[in-house]
Each structure stands twice: as structure tokens, then as C-alpha cells.
């Protein structure tokens, strides 16, 4: 963006503005774009979710406002804007007021490092992944503020649950990403996507593989297990069913949002859906190659880039459109899976949630990190690192060996943990039955 602005101002008009002004204008334009896109995503996703879940329940869903209910979110938005804003007298006014902003702001920040297409990233940070997840945790503070300031027991219980859940599920999420980071050797999100060129096998692992933009991490055992763990953790982070415990309507009204009305409530909703979008987006970026797909890499190679200034601008546009198309298709696909899961499963109990997170997901992701280390060792290391015996193998053999070993390790770990977890759950269920029997005196 800054290149374009520089081109227009300093070359076309010849005004000779300083580089900081150019940078400022460039970032402002991008920020304005993103602030437009984020609420739009939320509006679209609410409609998308309602239509999809309706289909799963043999209904049709909102289809009255505009063609196929297209303007339903707008109507909802207008409604929520015109609602009265009620602040309880017992509430801590300022904290109550600031909490929605603290929840929304991080989700906007997260857009800063999100690549939409080849070369289309607001800020290519070399710590992008860390930034993304560090910022996402900030919203837990906002939730706690909201729950505490409302001085409402449901709100407080909801906030406690939200924070407990977020904190415990950040760990498996980050651990599963750690495995990927081990493989790529970089925390940059752009680098992460670039790694995933190829066809089934990444070109970085085996250079002879044709680059069809399909060398996604999901095709390796390490990536697959990380994907499962990460997606489950993402559901918990985004407070999606079956982990929507913080706002379990049947138990605690609306959790930390109980005392919010009007547009403040709308902001929480906005934050939630934007966060869901971002989690789906980051899932598709990390495990499904983001904008990677057949054709994008080739198109981008012909485009005007710092590496290739002689390219044609048509290819920039084509690569961008195709890349964004792939990216959004995957993202909305994951959102569909989220809705699908919501349609299928019942809400967990808070203790089941904690059990599952700490006793199943975290051990599994720890094993996965071990697998990732083996993968890196077998595909990248050589004699210098003390693995002389792989030196003579061809890249494909090395890749195959890594695939086999990690697959066996991950599958074994999964089955073992599943068995232990199932046994512990059975034991718990048996105890529950015993207690019930004692309480009711009925066999």
C-alpha cells in the first residue's frame, strides 16, 4: 500500500512528501479498510450462521429481509442501535462502559497481521503469530471487567467461566501452534503461508515437488493432530458450542453480557463474531495454506513485486482475487464447521471442559511437539546436527520416514490418551450414578 501511495504522491504528483507521511497515509488507508471489513464480516457471519443452523434443524432461517434474507443483519443492526442503553445503578459505571471497548479493540488489532492474499498483509511482522495470540488473550480482561462491573451474579459467574476457559484453552492452542512453528522455523504468518506451497508435500521439505499451492500442513501427521487440537481450542476461545459455557443461556442468562443492552451488547456480539472469523481465518492460514491454492503462486510470480518489478499489474489483481477467494472459501468453510458442531453437540459442563482441556488436549499437543521435533530432525537436520545417518537419504525418503514415524507416534498417543480419558470419564459417570442412587434411593 505504501508503494502505491508513494508512487501516486511523489512520482505522479511530484510533491516529494517525507517517508513518514507516506507511511502514515498508507496505514490509515489500510486501517480504514479493515475497520470497514470487520463489522461487515460480523454482519455476514450472523446471517450465515443463522441460515446454516436453520438448515441443520430442517428449517429455512431468516429469508424475509431482502433476497434470501440478505439485509437481515442490517435490520438487526438498526434495531440494536435504537435500543435503550441501560446501566445498572449498582454497576461500576466506568468499567462497565469501557469493557466492551476492551473486548472489541483486540479483535481489531488481530487484523493487523492477517494476510488476505499474496502480498496483501497490513503488517508483515516477524512475530505475527505470537502477536496474534497475545492480543487475542487481552479480550479476557475485557470480559472480566464486564462481568465484574455489572455487579450481577450471572455476569460474574459468566466472566469467571470465560476467563477460566480462555486461559486453559490458550495452552493447547499455543502448544499445537508450537509444533507448526518448529517445522517452519518462523513466527511470521506470511512465512507460514509461503511454506505451504507444493502438492501434498511442501516444497520446502522436498524441493522437487511441483508448487500447486497445496502443500498444506494438514497433510502431515503433525499438522493434522495440531489442527484437531487447535480447532477444538479455537471453539473454546471463540466461545462456540459445545464450549459456550460462559454464556450458557439456560444456566446464567447471557453470562458476562447479562447487564448489557443496546449497542454495548452489540459490541460484545461484534467482538465475538469477529473473533470467530479470525479464528477460522487463522486456522485456514496455519493448516490449510491461507491464500495458497492452485494458480495463485504462478500468478503472483508474474506480478509486480519487490522481487519482480517488471511484472504486469493484471497479475497482481488476478493473484489477489484468486488468493482472497481461496482464503475466504476456507475461512467460511471453517465457520460452517463451527456451525455444524453447534448443530450437533450439546454444551459441556465446566468440569468436563477442564478435564478435556487439561487431561486430553494438553498431553496430546505435547506429544505432537515431540513429533514435530522428529519431523524437523528427519527432514532438515544433517551431520552437523548429529544426524549423520539421514544424510544419504533422498529428500523424498526423508520425508516418507518422517511421515511414518510421526504418524505412528501421534496415532499411538491419540489412542492411548483416548482410552485413558474414556476410562476416567466412565469412572466419573459411575461415581455420579452411585451418588444419584444414594440420593434418590432408587436402583
Amino acid at each position, binding site marked *: 500500500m505504501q508503494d502505491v501511495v508513494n508512487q501516486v504522491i511523489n512520482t505522479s504528483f511530484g510533491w516529494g512528501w517525507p517517508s513518514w507521511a507516506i507511511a502514515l497515509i498508507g496505514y490509515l488507508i489500510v486501517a480504514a479498510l479493515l475497520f470497514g471489513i470487520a463489522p461487515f464480516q460480523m454482519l455476514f457471519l450472523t446471517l450465515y450462521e443463522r441460515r*446454516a443452523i436453520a*438448515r*441443520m*434443524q*430442517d*428449517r*429455512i432461517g431468516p429469508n424475509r429481509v431482502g433476497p434470501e434474507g440478505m439485509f437481515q443483519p442490517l435490520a438487526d443492526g438498526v434495531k440494536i442501535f435504537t435500543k435503550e442503553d441501560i446501566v445498572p445503578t449498582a454497576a461500576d459505571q466506568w468499567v462497565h462502559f469501557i469493557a466492551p471497548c476492551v473486548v472489541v479493540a483486540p479483535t481489531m488489532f488481530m487484523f493487523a497481521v492477517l494476510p488476505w492474499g499474496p502480498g496483501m498483509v497490513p503488517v508483515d511482522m516477524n512475530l505475527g503469530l505470537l502477536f496474534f495470540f497475545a492480543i487475542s488473550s487481552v479480550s479476557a480482561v475485557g470480559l472480566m471487567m464486564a462481568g465484574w462491573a455489572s455487579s450481577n451474579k450471572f455476569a460474574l459467574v459468566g466472566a469467571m467461566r470465560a476467563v477460566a476457559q480462555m486461559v486453559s484453552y490458550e495452552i493447547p492452542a499455543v502448544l499445537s501452534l508450537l509444533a507448526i512453528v518448529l517445522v517452519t522455523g518462523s513466527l511470521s504468518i506470511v512465512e507460514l503461508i509461503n511454506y505451504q506451497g507444493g502438492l501434498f508435500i511442501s516444497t520446502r521439505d522436498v524441493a522437487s515437488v511441483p508448487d500447486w499451492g497445496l502443500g498444506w500442513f494438514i497433510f502431515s501427521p503433525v499438522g493434522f493432530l495440531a489442527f484437531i487440537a487447535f480447532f477444538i481450542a479455537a471453539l473454546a476461545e471463540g466461545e462456540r458450542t459445545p464450549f459456550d459455557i460462559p454464556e450458557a443461556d439456560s444456566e446464567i442468562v447471557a453470562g458476562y453480557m447479562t447487564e448489557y443492552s443496546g449497542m454495548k451488547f452489540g459490541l460484545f456480539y461484534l467482538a465475538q463474531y469477529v473473533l470467530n472469523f479470525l479464528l477460522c481465518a487463522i486456522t485456514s492460514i496455519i493448516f490449510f495454506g491461507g491464500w495458497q491454492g492452485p494458480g495463485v503462486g504462478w500468478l503472483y510470480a508474474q506480478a509486480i513485486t519487490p522481487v519482480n518489478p517488471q511484472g504486469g499489474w493484471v497479475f497482481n489483481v488476478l493473484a489477489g482475487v484468486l488468493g482472497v477467494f481461496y482464503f475466504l472459501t476456507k475461512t467460511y468453510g471453517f465457520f460452517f464447521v463451527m456451525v*455444524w*458442531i453447534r*448443530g*450437533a*453437540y450439546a454444551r459441556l459442563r465446566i468440569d468436563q471442559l477442564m478435564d478435556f482441556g487439561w487431561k486430553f488436549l494438553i498431553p496430546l499437543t505435547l506429544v505432537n511437539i515431540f513429533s514435530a521435533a522428529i519431523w524437523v530432525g528427519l527432514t532438515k537436520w544433517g551431520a552437523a546436527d548429529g544426524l549423520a545417518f539421514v544424510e544419504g537419504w533422498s529428500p523424498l525418503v526423508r520425508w516418507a520416514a518422517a511421515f511414518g514415524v510421526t504418524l505412528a507416534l501421534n496415532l499411538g498417543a*491419540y*489412542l492411548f490418551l*483416548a*482410552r485413558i480419558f*474414556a*476410562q476416567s470419564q*466412565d469412572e466419573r*459417570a459411575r461415581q455420579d450414578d452411585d451418588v444419584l442412587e444414594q440420593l434418590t434411593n432408587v436402583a
Partner: protein
Amino acid sequence: MTTETQHGSVIVMDRRRGKLRAGQGLLQGLRVVWDHWAGSFRKNDNFSKIHGTFTVEYPEERLPMPQAYRNMPVLLFDDESGHELCTGCYQCQRICPPQVIHITQAKDPVTGKMVPAATEFIIEYDACMSCGFCAEVCPFDSIKMDHVYELSTANRASLTMRKAQLNRSISYYTGIAPGLWAEVQAGAMKKLQGSIKRRPDVIGLAASLTEKIKARRLELAAAAAAAPAAAAVSAPAAPAAPAAKLTPEEKAAKLAAMKAANANKGAAPAPAEAPVALSPADAKAAKLAAIKAANANKGAAPAPAEAPVALSPADAKAAKLAAIKAANAAKQAEAAPVSVETAVATAPLDAKAARLAAIKAANAAKLAAEQGNNE
């Protein structure tokens, strides 16, 4: 999996406790939901199927209502006579749990006595809870539950329904609940006939029809006054028959006239003067007899039975006039068979007068018959 116990077969869920569950159950759950999602793009019009959307897109599509569906109560009136079935018995007002029915009993304007009809009948639809008690308790099957459910309004007062708004014809009700009406029809209609006998003038007529019937009666009276002599056979008056023929007083007159006619038929050979001579006491009776004679004189015997009924003049004066003219004509008559129609044609509208005249006519006819037989 079903298991047989001594109480019958019981479904036992195999929860696979203690077995290795590596997520198959979760996947099965996803499978079920997926099938529903994929199946939902078809419409499910056969309710034995599990998949497909069931949604009825309401404003465009509507489900047919079951007969016994009940929304708000309405009052029925008889299509043919225009009489309401309600007698103002207060049963519904008494049973209504939220007490939203308000009835004013009709009174005879002359005698001040109760008449089996309601002059005003109000139901506050806004507070009615559609319990249907009123319809169930009504001994005259007058109040029935309507199927119209689109009653939303921005104006609460417009939900206070008066009698005119509550009136529905029986044919409307048979349209929405034919079976339910068929069950009660015989009894309801019989009771209605009983009520009609006790209702003077236009009391108890459906409000939408009251004015119409009144106007029609006046019109008929005028027509009869204008052409009294030709009335019995005149064609233009005939089409009006269905509208007026069913008012109770006319029915009573018709009945009496028929009896008279039958008697007269037996006494066909009797001379025209005989009936006149036989009822000297009462002037009216004499006139009636004279009319009969006149008719016979005219030789218009084969006139259709219904037509004259339609022509009954509403006005007593007109009737008298006609009677006199007929009497004059009759005086010139030698002998002729007496026909039914004339008597009816001249029956005065006023119920009492009509009945009186009819009775007298009947008496005269009876006497004539006896005379004829005797002779």
C-alpha cells in the same frame, strides 16, 4: 437394542462403557446433522420422512385449519330468514372466564316483554382467551369459534366487537366446520324456528340484513297497493318471492291459507255467496271470504302457489282495499272453486293481523266446507 423384561420390551442404549471410544460417537453425531443439512434443500411434504424442511412459509402458504380449531367466537345467523340464532340467554356471558361477553336482551317495544333475541352483543376480543367455553355452553348453537386468526391491529378499541361485527352466516360456518355444524344442525334449526315465532318485527334479525328486509317489505307493500287486483298473477312481483316468503308471519299466513284452500277445494261446488253469508259477524272475515270468491270469479285458479305469497301487502289499508275490490268482483261471481293463493296474497304484513285474518279465513273456509258437505 431392545431387551425383553417381564413388563415388556425395553430399549437399552449401548453406551459402550469401558470400551475404547476414539471419537466415533462424535463423528456419528456430525453425520446425523450433515444428513439433515443436506436433506434440507428439499421440501418435506410427507411427515413420515425425517429429512427435508417442514417450514410453511406463512404469509404465502397456509396450513388448512382443522374444523375444531378455535380462535375467536362469532355469532351465527340463518342465511334464509336472516334471523340470529342467539336468544340472549346469558349462558355464554356467565361462563366466560375473563368476562368479556356483554349482552343486552331484546324487549318487545309494545309489550315490554323479553323477546328471545339480543339487541346488543359485545365481545372484547382483546381479552378473550379463546377458551371456547362460550361456544360449548351455548344451548342454541349460536356462538361458534371462528378460524380467522389475523386480528392484529394498532388500535386496541377496534377489538371490541359489536353484534354487527360478530355476525356470520351459517353458510360461512359450514364452510369452515361442516362436520361440526352437521352434528348440531337439526336441533339448532328447530330451536331457531321456536325463537322466530316469538320475535316481533325485525327483532332478532342480523343487523346487516335488518334494513334490507325492512325496505323490501315496504317495497312489496307498495307494489301490492299499486296493483292489488292483478297482484295474484302479476309476473314482476314473482321474483321477489324468495326474499320475503320466509318471514314468520307470512309463513303462518301461508299455512292458514293452505288449510283454508284445502277445505275450500273440498267445497268446490259451493256457491260464492255462501262463505260471505256464513261470516256476517266479522267484517274482516267477510272481506277475506269475498276475496276468495273474487279470485274464484276471476278464474285465475291455476296460478302458481308461491307467487301470491310473495305479494303479501305490508299495509293493512292496502289489504283492505284489495279485499274490498275483490269482494266487489266476487259479488258478480256465480260459482267458482276457491283457490288458496288469494287468501295468502292479501294477508296483512302485521303479524297479529295476519294471524287473525288467517285464522278467520280458515274458520270461514271450514264453515264453507261444512256447508258444502252438508249441501
